[in-house]
């Protein structure tokens, strides 16, 4: 008879036994050893029918194809730019992916993007050796001007964005800020009112810190209402 040894939404540590018996299936972040299913990292248990998976609570960003991320230009080479992703690997932005404009070989690349510029880009390819290619061609992919960059953990990004973007649009609407959240956790916040910009930063940091505690949307809503003194409306109810 199979036995579940842990409750839903509980925090696990590596090696902890989550379930015994063959009736349960190991999902992401877990592994089977003999008759048991064990956790392989620090995370939050998510039980979905027979499958047990973990939502990681810590760890660095692993580049994935199709992710929209925010990175900064760390080096300029002959064939393009090297972009820091806040991950163990950097990405390559080649001349032909740099934008709609044609860039001739040997042109002064600092005219387009220069050292320390932050850009929103999309990962087009990741090899097994973690060579990453990015593109700037596409809607919303651009260089960032002004505002400020904050860094949150990559695993908190889904919570900051919320279901169908509900959380981030709530923050945007309440504070009137522009917010772009990259999948790698690098987040750009811009508002002409510095006070509101700071409030946005504070809110996003609060979301990231408390993301694993239930009732997040309501708490953030109350927090924003208290800070701005205005009523905040949410499109999607609950989490």
């Amino acid at each position: 008879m199979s036995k579940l040894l842990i409750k839903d939404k509980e925090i696990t540590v590596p090696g902890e036994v989550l379930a015994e018996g063959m009736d349960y299936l190991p999902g992401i972040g877990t592994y089977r050893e003999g008759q048991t299913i064990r956790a392989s990292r620090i995370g939050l248990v998510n039980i979905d029918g027979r499958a047990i998976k973990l939502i990681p609570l810590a760890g660095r960003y692993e580049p994935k194809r199709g992710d929209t991320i925010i990175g900064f230009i760390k080096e300029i080479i002959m064939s393009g730019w090297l972009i820091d992703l806040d991950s163990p690997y950097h990405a390559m932005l080649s001349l032909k992916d740099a934008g709609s404009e044609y860039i001739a070989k040997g042109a002064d690349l600092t005219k387009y993007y220069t050292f320390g510029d932050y850009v929103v880009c999309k990962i087009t390819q990741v090899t097994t050796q973690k060579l990453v290619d990015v593109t700037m061609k596409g809607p919303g992919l651009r260089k960032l001007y002004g505002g400020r960059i904050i860094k949150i953990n990559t695993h908190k990004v889904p919570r900051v964005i919320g279901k169908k973007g509900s959380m981030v649009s709530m923050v945007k609407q309440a504070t009137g800020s522009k917010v772009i959240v990259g999948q790698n956790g690098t987040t750009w916040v811009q508002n002409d009112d510095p006070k509101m910009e700071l409030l946005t930063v504070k809110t996003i940091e609060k979301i990231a810190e408390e993301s694993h505690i239930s009732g997040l949307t309501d708490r953030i809503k109350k927090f924003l209402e208290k800070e701005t003194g205005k009523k905040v409306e949410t499109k999607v109810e609950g989490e």
Partner: protein
Amino acid sequence: MAYTKRLDKRKFDEPREMEAKVGIIPRADGSAMFRMGNTIAYAAVYGPRSMFPRFLQDPQRGTLRCHYNMMPFSSGGERVRPGPSRRSREISMITEKALLPVIDLSHFPNAVVDVFVELPQTDSGTRCAGITAAAMALADAGIVMKDLVSSISVGSIDGQVLVDLTYDEEAYEGVVADIPVAYLPGSEKLTLLQMDGIVAKDILKKAIELGKKTCKDIYELQKNALKEKFKIKGDSK
């Protein structure tokens, strides 16, 4: 003369008072502190990050790099010469080998996970405290691990098996054996077994069993410390 009473009045199977904390170095990706008695170990984990010098990179998997250091003022009155030594290189290496079987870095080719173990105060059992702290710090950094690693030193004085030797016990006049063990509480395997001194075969076996038993208690402490880190933030509702 038989060793009938321990110098600090503990029972023979009683380790020193232990304390574990996680997430104490905010700038690090993962960090932990482990204290047993007067031995304090801090561990900080950085990474996975790109590895330099480049010739050390492994294109097949990530590398674990451990660094063990006793601070100059850490030991009982005698200044420890700072910088790498034969001893610290050895302990760095065995720390790495004790942790490597549980961690999975196959997703991070050419990258490195750096583990720094610093000891501000020591009273024997430093490598064990270092490994215990490092395992917690690695878990806190979100590294994929099969299991945690718990470590304690066991030994014997004049044929009496005991756990968690202090410096005074290691220096006791008599037949002393000091055996640091590192243990995987989940899969029940040893990843470190060293010995200093003289010991009989049956006593060695008894000592290892005692070490395993104590490591299970340490594991509970590590587990609670890791869970505590995320619970504290939960109170700010």
